[in-house]
């Protein structure tokens, strides 16, 4: 059963009902009757309707009417009218941070299940390898390709090098070539070319069923989705739990990686509804450091239990609170510790009611502040 089926005592039921009613009344004020079902006609301003109105996702044109094709909430942005489907699979946007599970390791790529209608593809070439950066001499040329992500190279102006070269006479060119070869050898850092050996070792990086964090790179013209993991913050996720919620509950924000310092936990809110709760990892890029860390961290399994189980609670929160937000999660965790509730009871009814009440209160406060 998707909805919560908790055994509630009479008082609990009443309290929960009251909280939910409060939530409902608050949201009704926010937008009244914007929700539509399949085949409902969406009212549009008829003067400019079919000249100016843009039909967005979840709508279709039927005999001159704008008709919804999914159940959801009508959203209007200027002339665009679309239906935001509530419960649906994830609709990716370029730049979203997602958490996915590897389903297949194939040639030069991993296929990841990210709750999209297709599997996402993470190419071997679009991720940083643990030993991915390398000094390379063989590619030395007179022009240096500038790149933004490399600190060292940015200090040297490629134009300066060019001008130097052009002012030098032909006699010295071979010498300069030699020098610049040396020079490039020192300064050019390129990400290493993927060799056949790397391809063979792909399973050493991610295996099937590994949980991976990545960013959405682009859509191919055939509709398939490409991911990238070019920074140290992306990559394999270990020692933690994966929660799966409906994607519409995760709001897009500037920050999807959170570090909850008081618990020593990393929290990744994937836009696809996959939420990762794991131990905090300092440096993800170098394997050596990682291993050192992990041996240290595995010393405290007790604490780990303590912190992880409360976060399991998140699913409950989502059901009620729905706005998944780092602050909210923190608040709930705090709540759980202030009322000194046992970890096992957190999935129980009493806490459920408590969270609902808190959320109703919070939203009413927020509504007041807005007004």
């Amino acid at each position, binding site marked *: 059963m998707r909805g919560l089926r908790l055994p509630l005592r009479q008082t609990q039921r009443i309290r929960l009902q009251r909280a939910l009613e409060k939530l*409902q009344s608050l949201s009704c004020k926010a937008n009244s009757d914007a*929700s539509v079902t399949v085949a409902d006609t969406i009212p549009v301003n008829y003067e400019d309707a079919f000249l100016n109105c843009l039909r967005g996702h979840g709508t279709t044109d*039927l005999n001159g009417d704008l008709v919804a094709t999914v159940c959801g909430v009508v959203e209007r942005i200027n002339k665009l009218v679309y239906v935001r*489907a509530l419960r649906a*699979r994830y609709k990716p946007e370029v730049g979203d941070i997602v958490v996915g599970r590897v389903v297949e390791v194939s040639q030069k790529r991993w296929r990841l299940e990210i709750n999209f*209608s*297709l*599997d996402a593809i993470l190419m071997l070439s679009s991720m940083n390898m643990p030993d991915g950066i390398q000094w390379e001499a063989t590619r030395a040329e007179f022009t240096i390709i500038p790149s933004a992500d490399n600190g060292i190279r940015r200090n040297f102006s490629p134009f300066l090098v060019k001008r130097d070269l052009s002012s030098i006479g032909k006699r010295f060119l071979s010498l300069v070539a030699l020098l610049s070869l040396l020079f490039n050898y020192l300064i050019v850092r390129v990400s290493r070319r993927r060799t056949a050996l790397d391809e063979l070792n792909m399973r050493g990086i991610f295996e099937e069923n590994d949980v991976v964090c990545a960013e959405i790179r682009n859509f191919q013209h055939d509709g398939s989705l490409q991911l990238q993991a070019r920074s140290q913050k992306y990559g394999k996720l270990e020692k933690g739990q994966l929660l799966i919620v409906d994607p519409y509950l995760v709001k897009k924000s500037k920050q999807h990686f959170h570090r909850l310092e008081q618990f020593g936990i990393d929290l990744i809110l994937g836009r696809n509804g996959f939420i990762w709760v794991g131990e905090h990892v300092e440096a993800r890029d170098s394997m050596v450091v990682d291993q050192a860390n992990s041996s240290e961290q595995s010393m405290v399994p007790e604490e780990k239990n303590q912190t992880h189980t409360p976060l399991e609670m998140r699913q409950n929160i989502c059901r*009620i609170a729905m706005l998944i937000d780092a602050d909210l999660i923190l608040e709930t965790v705090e709540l759980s510790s202030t009322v000194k509730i046992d970890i096992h009871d957190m999935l129980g009814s009493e806490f459920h009611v408590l969270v609902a009440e808190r959320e109703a209160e919070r*939203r009413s406060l927020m509504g007041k502040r807005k007004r």
Partner: protein
Amino acid sequence: MEYVSPEGLRLDGRRPMEMRQLRAEIGTVAKANGSAVFEMGNTKVIAAVYGPREMINVVNVFQVQNRSQQINDQALVRCEYSMANFSTGDRMRKPKGDRRSTEISLVIRQTMEACILTHLMPRSQIDIFVQVLQVMERNISILNVSAGTRSACINAATLALADAGIPMRDIVTSCSAGFELHEDSAGGPDVTVGILPKLDKVTLLQQFNLTTHSSFYELLLAYLVHFPFIMDAKLPVDIFENVMGLATEGCKAIANYIREVLLENTKQLEYRGVCNSYVSGSI
């Protein structure tokens, strides 16, 4: 056996023109992308929808379909119908895989395909699993059961698809109506209709006869579209039109009910989640 008793009531206590009681519930299977239970009278059906997801090669489960069926510009809809062992009075030995369930799977698949906007989800597949949990009367032969379960299955599948957020042209609803030829006959022909209420189109039309069960194709109404109609019985045109009209009315009533349920569900999801939009506004 008589369909209508001297008091003017049917076996399950309804009046001749009365529709069965409806009940629907959304979100009954936790792991599915969309799910629903639909009840029409004593017929109870559960449907679960998975997808749209990457096409998987499962030849065994869906006997005919495999990679060769892959269509590049639209989603593949698959459907599996089964009856639970405990659904009928006497325990069924073979709940799925016989000719009847293959046929019903096909019917549901075709009906659903007609309303899903498959071109929006290229290279993916949508799996619909429908299972009959309980059928109407225990003392009536399996053939008699088919009309009611068929429509209940289609209605349940529609609800589940809408719950999964799969874009559809319209909600398909289905209803069946029967006709008693003579006072003393053992049940007359029976018509199952599936319509798209908003578009006012018929996507499914099946006709059975319990007594003769002859396969005889007849009568295509001009405004009907889309799909081959399966006519298993002979029926005079005027009576057919009556029965058909009755079934269509039933469909519309069911459509209204389904939309109510969906709207209620959407509102529930919304008020618990709508905060998204308005909090971001205040910051």
